[in-house]
């Protein structure tokens, strides 16, 4: 047997399925999907709503467990891991960007960005330093003390990107990151994510149904009815 060439994938799904019971009806949201995400990769997951792309992102982000199949993070099978270790992996390995930003409304930009470090036990002063640096990296060094409501949608999403990157994750999972933004602001946010992908060796997975957004990625995975329809580089 020959091993894979190069470094191990950051996240690897092997024949994963996810099904739900909805009022006695078995719904299969994801049907035996296999996917490898290499370090520093830039990948878009495309597909109509209901195709299973969000479910796939939740599985890759360890927010959910597959009903069948194998899931590895950094080469490690996560099937048997208890909640607290999954939480630790999410905290250290994975960064999330959501369509609706999910910022804490009453919390300042810098404290929003520092939130992942809180759960890592980083002291307050150091948290603030790292969060400030992350905000400067996304061009919001002048907005440290602002609350989300005082900022535009594009600025809010950039705060969310800073929060996803402050903990230096191996992979950034972005679920429709431009869905709530106009096309110009959306393009700016995508450029930001791409520059961070290039500079920091963070693998980026963008889940979208927007062909323009997907076209920017180096690799496109198209999904339909819970299965991978095509995977092009």
């Amino acid at each position, binding site marked *: 047997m020959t091993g894979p060439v190069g470094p191990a994938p950051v996240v690897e799904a092997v024949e994963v399925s996810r099904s739900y019971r909805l009022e006695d009806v078995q719904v299969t949201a994801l049907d035996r999907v296999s996917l490898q995400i290499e370090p520093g990769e830039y990948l878009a997951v495309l597909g109509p709503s209901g195709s299973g792309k969000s479910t796939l992102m939740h599985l890759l*982000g360890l*927010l959910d467990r597959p009903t069948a199949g194998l899931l590895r993070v950094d080469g490690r099978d996560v099937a048997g891991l208890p909640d607290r270790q999954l939480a630790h992996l*999410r905290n250290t390995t994975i960064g*999330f960007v959501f369509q609706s930003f*999910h910022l804490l409304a009453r919390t300042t930009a810098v404290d929003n960005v520092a*939130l992942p470090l809180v759960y890592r036990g980083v002291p307050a002063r150091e948290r603030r330093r790292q969060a400030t640096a992350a905000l400067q990296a996304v061009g919001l060094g002048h907005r440290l003390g602002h609350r989300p409501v005082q900022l535009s949608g594009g600025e809010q999403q950039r705060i969310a990107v800073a929060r996803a990157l402050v903990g230096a994750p191996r992979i950034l999972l972005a679920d429709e990151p431009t869905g709530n933004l106009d096309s110009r602001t959306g393009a700016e946010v995508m450029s930001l994510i791409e520059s961070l992908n290039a500079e920091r060796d963070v693998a980026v997975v963008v889940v979208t149904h927007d062909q323009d957004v997907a076209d920017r990625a180096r690799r496109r995975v198209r999904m339909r009815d819970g299965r991978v329809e095509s995977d092009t580089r």
Partner: protein
Amino acid sequence: MRLGEAFASALAALRANRLRSALTMLGVVIGVGSVVLLVAIGSGAKQQVERQVEGLGSNLILVVPGRFSVGTAPSVSRLTLQDVDYLGRVVGNRDTVATTVSSGEEIRVGATARYVTVNGTNENVPRVFDRPLARGRYLTRADVDTRRRVAVLGSQVAHDLFGDRDPLGRQVSVAGVRFRVVGVFAEVGSTFGVSRDAEVHVPVSAAQRLFGVSRIDALAVKAPTIASIGPLQTRIVSALEQKYRGEKFSAVTQTQILGTIGTILGLLTVVLAAIAGISLLVGGVGVSNIMLVSVRERTQEIGLRKALGARQGDILLQFLIEAVLLTTIGGVIGMCLGVGTALAADRFTELPTQIAWWSLALASGVSVSVGVFFGVFPARRAGRLDPVAALRSE
């Protein structure tokens, strides 16, 4: 997540919902405040009664017919005035035996009338009880022997009937019979708004004729030393039971009276505290309810925190601390209010209060426990939320 930071962020969350937090706290404030206040009232009553029983005089033995118990009606007395001499022989000193027969009567000077307790007593009262005079003299043996119609007034009675005039030598009418005032007691104060200065002492012989009775209600003996109290009690009871075959008598000391009253008032205090405790419980249910609402409202926040690496325990702790902070802050405010009200009542009203330190310790312990007890359920629910479902909820 560090504990100190968890407290800081919980405090921030409570501050974000100021009105709601304040209203939720109010239940705990009222509960804790009423525990502290009611216990202070109970303790104050107990302390005052104890002080008054102690104020009767030291080494005192009270002799009453029947079995002594606080709260039951006294037995009908078969004791007579001869028993003063009889007990005097039993204890070896007639001067240490006082007696009393009491009745509520109207006392009048001109158009001014008061309803007071008239005590028929003998000349030994100042020796047996601590009852100092403000002016004049007390009753003498000759007053008692010759059934002289003289009276010693309580300070309140003297003031009500005579105002600033000197009552000595003046006439008062007790139940229609004229008495001459020979003395006025020094002021001793009031119990629960009822003045102990509203009584009148007259010779027991005159009182018996006035009331139309030949009995006396009770005898009091002053023991020469503390050590002699025990043997004297036994001797008095057996002597009286020998004289009155088939009757029961009790000779009780202040310590025994204090014990009985203490038990009753202690029980009262506990009952008051328990009633107040119920309102604290209701306050706790309010905290639980609001925490459940808060968890539901912040479902997305919980999902986000989990996505960013919060463990179940972190989320549970966050909500538990919020609940405990609510009840603890409410408890502190309630304690301050309770103590403040109790002190104000003590100073500005007739209601005596005494802050019981154990009630403060209990109230603070209970308010923290209420927070933990009623916070755990919502907090566990928050900790167990499925992050995917939580993030999706709108």
